């Protein structure tokens, strides 16, 4: 191997947290002018490994080589001096600072004047084809803009080795394309790039080589050109996995929930939902597609009784549930599992163990002032067994679990309450293939039991395969409710950006 070209080589890297071995003798290398994808299931040790390269953690054993030289990276300062920059899964930005303040943060030397700094940032943007307003504060930025700032931060420090931890998890398909164009440009300029992602189609489209981790061990590297999605999954999971999602025929279909002319305001006064009408039927999965922030959150929260509506009605078995408290709505058998961008934000209490989180939903049913934890413990054990949740003990705080396991806990609890209507938003957000399929199976089981399922998702391929009907939202309006078996991805894409189906257009015209 040419030493000049080798950007990073890891040899026998081992890291343990308490009794958990996160990384076990990992081998990895990446060249300058190459994009390496790092693939592995949740909890396989990808982020831990990258954190060691960027100086956040320190390896217990093993040696890291940068540009052929053995190095010890004991802090982010060391990493920066070696030309390594990391873009974390959770952005490391100061919300109240502007883009350029964030970019210049922590760099050595004197603070350049505002004008000079702006000039430098603009120049950097031009060089790499990026686009950002240097004086915009971060709290006003979209997710994609924040990511641009993160990339600029790394470039400003002159990094030649770039690590991206799940950069596309929160991006729309268009934003992802833009990001990839930037990465290709950086590669052309001789940067070495390591990218972590769960989306196999992205791995295939952006990377030159793939290194696969399984349970903390590296199972090998392959040239991207010579593999396909099925092969990658097999390497990652350890055995062949069918990549098609089942879609049992809906049976015993009748309307459970009818939403009529619903209009809901966002906290800032703008319309979150604008005159929305649709139905959810038992025994089917209704998918909801739309660019992030098109009203999905408002829809969930209004049905769950958390947000008041301005106009319209929500009829559950012919009874209007608007104005009822969340508690009453839960008692009616409507259950929601919402997985927000930060995964833990809604639904579970991060520092409590599984049984206590189970109790959150059931303590009211207990008799007397005391809490009986025994059934909650039973339920926790049952879920661990049934869903294959990996945790050191059921009493361990849920924040210590990996993302996939947290989501299984949340969804498992909701399903155990035997709902008639199950609303689930982004249940596979950030999950690896295997865990995602477990969740799809769970949803299908519910559907076959006659539960009406509303599935708010991001991945159009999944929506098309799993759902029976798909409702598309754009700026709080419904641009179409279509049959998932006949519609194409491109049609949904267009509807997401505001193009209406003929049917919807007619409806609009009728009303006007």
């Amino acid at each position, binding site marked *: 191997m040419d030493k000049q070209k080798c950007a990073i080589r890891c040899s026998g890297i081992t890291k343990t947290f308490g009794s958990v071995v996160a990384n076990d003798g990992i081998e990895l290398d990446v060249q300058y002018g190459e994009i390496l994808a790092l693939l592995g299931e949740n909890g396989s040790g990808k982020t831990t490994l990258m954190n060691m390269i960027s100086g956040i953690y320190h390896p217990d054993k093993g040696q890291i080589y940068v540009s052929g030289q053995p190095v010890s990276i004991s802090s982010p300062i060391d990493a920066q001096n070696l030309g390594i920059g990391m873009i974390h899964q959770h952005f*490391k930005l*100061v919300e109240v600072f502007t883009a350029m303040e964030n970019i210049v*943060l922590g760099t050595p030397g004197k603070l350049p004047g505002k004008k000079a700094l702006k000039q430098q940032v603009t120049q950097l943007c031009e060089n790499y084809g990026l686009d950002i307003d240097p004086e915009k504060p971060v709290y006003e930025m979209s997710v994609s803009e924040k990511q641009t700032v993160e990339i600029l931060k790394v470039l400003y420090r002159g990094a030649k080795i770039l690590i991206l931890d799940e950069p596309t998890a929160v991006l729309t398909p268009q934003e992802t394309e833009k990001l990839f164009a930037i990465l290709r440009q950086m590669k052309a300029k001789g940067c070495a790039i390591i990218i972590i992602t769960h989306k196999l189609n992205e791995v295939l489209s952006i990377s030159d080589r793939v290194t696969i981790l399984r349970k903390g061990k590296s199972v090998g590297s392959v040239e991207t050109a010579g593999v396909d999605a099925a092969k990658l999954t097999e390497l990652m999971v350890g055995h062949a996995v069918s990549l098609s999602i089942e879609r049992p025929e809906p049976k015993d279909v009748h309307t459970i929930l009818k939403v009529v002319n619903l209009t809901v305001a966002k906290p800032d006064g703008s319309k979150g939902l604008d005159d929305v009408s649709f139905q959810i039927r038992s025994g089917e999965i209704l998918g909801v597609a739309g660019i992030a922030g098109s009203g999905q959150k408002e829809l969930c929260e209004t049905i769950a009784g958390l947000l008041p509506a301005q106009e319209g009605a929500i009829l559950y078995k012919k009874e209007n549930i608007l104005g009822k408290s969340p508690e009453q709505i839960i008692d009616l058998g409507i259950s929601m599992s919402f997985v927000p961008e930060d995964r833990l934000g809604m639904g579970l209490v991060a520092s409590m163990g599984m049984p206590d989180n189970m109790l959150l939903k059931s303590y009211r049913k207990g008799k007397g002032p005391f809490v009986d934890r025994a059934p909650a413990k039973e339920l926790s054990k049952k879920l661990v067994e049934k869903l294959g949740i990996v945790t050191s003990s059921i009493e361990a705080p849920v924040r210590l679990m990996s993302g996939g396991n947290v989501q299984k806990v949340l969804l498992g609890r909701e399903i155990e309450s035997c709902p008639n209507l199950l609303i689930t938003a982004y249940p596979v957000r950030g999950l690896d293939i295997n865990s995602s399929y477990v969740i799809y199976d769970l949803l299908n089981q519910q559907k076959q039991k006659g539960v009406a399922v509303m599935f708010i998702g991001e991945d159009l391929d999944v929506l098309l395969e799993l759902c029976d009907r798909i409702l598309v939202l754009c700026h709080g309006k419904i641009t179409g409710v279509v049959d998932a078996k006949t519609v194409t991805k491109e049609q949904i894409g267009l509807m997401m950006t505001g193009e209406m189906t003929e049917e919807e257009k007619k409806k609009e015209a009728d009303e006007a």
Partner: protein
Amino acid sequence: MDLFIKFLVAAIGAGTPLLFGTVGEILNEKVGHLNLGVEGMMAIGACAGFMGGYLSDNFMVALLCAFLAGMLAALIYAVLTVTFMANQNVAGLTMTIFGVGISNFIGVYMIEKAESGTLKLPAQVTQQMRSIQIPGLSDLPVVGPLLFSYNPFVYLGILVAALTGFYLYRTKTGLNVQAIGENPGAADAASIPVTKWKYFNILLGGGICGIGGAYCGMIINGGVWISNSVNGLGWIAVALVIFAAWKPHMAILGSFVFGALRVLKYYKVGFMVGMPDAFFDMLPFLITALVLIVTSMRGNKGAHIPAFLGNNYFREER
């Protein structure tokens, strides 16, 4: 008019210890540490300043003692909260109880040792900390008393506040320091030495609080040692940080307003005359409560509360 100018002059004097306390606490909170030990650090500063001046006959030595003692007290807090990640509220409250206690304890010990039964600063020191008279300027009508009639603490306080503002808002270090209070994870990833700057700010803030304490110990009681000279000013300083929206120059205004409230009882006019002094003693604390209510209603957008305030940072935490 004459009375009003006298009132303003008294207000600025009374606000000065608050100014030191507030600026010191701002430095703490900017790195994300809610230090409730201001009262204690000021008490320790009061004792160290007074005893320093008493034993050395030198005002500058007194100031230095107060500054160093404040820093030493802050060091205890910093070791507890930064290095050992102890709960900040508990550590701060402990610091207050400890500081007030040891200050009074040393005071009693020194009084017992003194032959006269009281402790009084030597004439040389009182001379040095008297109001500075600038020939010509101090004699001007209105402007003279209003601008050029104060003891050295007042000018030092304004200078410290201005320099702190410059440090936080005009230097790169200041930018880095603010990032620590907003998001230490981001600061760490941007290769800012988080622990180092936390110690720096907490210690510097403690030293400044100590000087504020020296004002209480040396000036308020006219150079005679009396226990509990800080008497709650440290708590008002903690609240003033919010009133000042974490900005040192706003702290100048805020502390003088509160200084005015504290001396109002000596300058009662009109309807106020019949009201009891106790009401005016209570007033600053009542206004503090009101300020806290108003600022919390105003929401987060305008006031720049450091987002990570009150939380300890541990890099490897998941």
